[in-house]
């Protein structure tokens, strides 16, 4: 057995882009896909080098499948979109920011990586 497989035996195999339910938003597309979007949008501020974001990724993919088409989940890589992260005062990753009709209604920083917690985090703010 190879040790590097011992490290994360129960970790899901990584996503492939064809299975990706979460669209990557950049500074150029943020306004169109988040602020001008109709209905609820959840923006995940993340970075690929963040171990906690990696754990969150399959959870968020599953949640994205559960909430579509009512909600859209997008990701914003703060390593690239530093200005966007700064303008939304993102202090760390992962941070989920919930937008409704372009307005931030809630945010969750460092959610526990399980489907029920994340699902509640991304749906409850829109139920009020």
């Amino acid at each position, binding site marked *: 057995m190879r*040790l590097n497989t011992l490290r994360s035996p129960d970790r899901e195999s990584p996503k492939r882009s064809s299975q990706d339910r979460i669209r990557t938003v950049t500074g150029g597309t943020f306004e169109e896909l988040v602020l001008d979007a109709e209905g609820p949008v959840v923006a995940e501020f993340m970075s690929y080098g963040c171990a906690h974001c*990696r754990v969150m990724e399959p959870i968020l993919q599953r949640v994205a499948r559960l909430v579509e088409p009512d909600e859209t989940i997008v990701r914003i890589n703060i390593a690239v979109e530093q200005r966007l992260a700064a303008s939304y005062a993102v202090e760390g990753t992962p941070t989920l920011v919930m937008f409704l009709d372009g307005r931030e209604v809630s945010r969750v920083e*460092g959610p526990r990586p399980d489907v029920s917690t994340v699902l509640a985090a991304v749906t409850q703010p829109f139920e009020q």
Partner: protein
Amino acid sequence: MTPALEKARPDTPILLFNDECGVCRRIAKWVEKSASTPSGASTIVDRPIGDDPEVLLALNQDLDIWDAYETIHLLMPDGSMKVGGEACAEVLRRLPRTRWLAQSFNVEVFGFRPFQRALDVGYLVLSDVRPVFGCESCGTPSAWLKPMVWATKRWGSLVDGTRVPVRTPHFTGMRTSD
């Protein structure tokens, strides 16, 4: 694409490294320097992992960006990938100055490779402790900068009278705000 990567021959392995990690950057720099041959060619080229999953998939269709940041990856010319301790062993095998040492990783005792296993463990330990030496992607300042960062935060809290928590850039506990 780095100049070294542009010059690389197609039979040269590519070492992917985390450009946001101080330890990884230093190791990559050492590998780059050590991989140079007198003729000017390189036995290994290194390149930062970057932020574009599609670029990595173009290098190897099984290469996932999350995996690349998790574990060291060496892309072999035949299209295969070596990861973790196996990648470290292959790098040492390809460097002119460490080739002799790398022979030990092939030593097998009853189907068990003790030196390779020791390297695997060494890699895992280094991989886990490297944020201590500074890692931008983990939000950890370099060890020598830590006291200054701490002092700055504490000084700020004394001046404005508010207690400033030492920030954890990668959250592990949930905070909600409506």
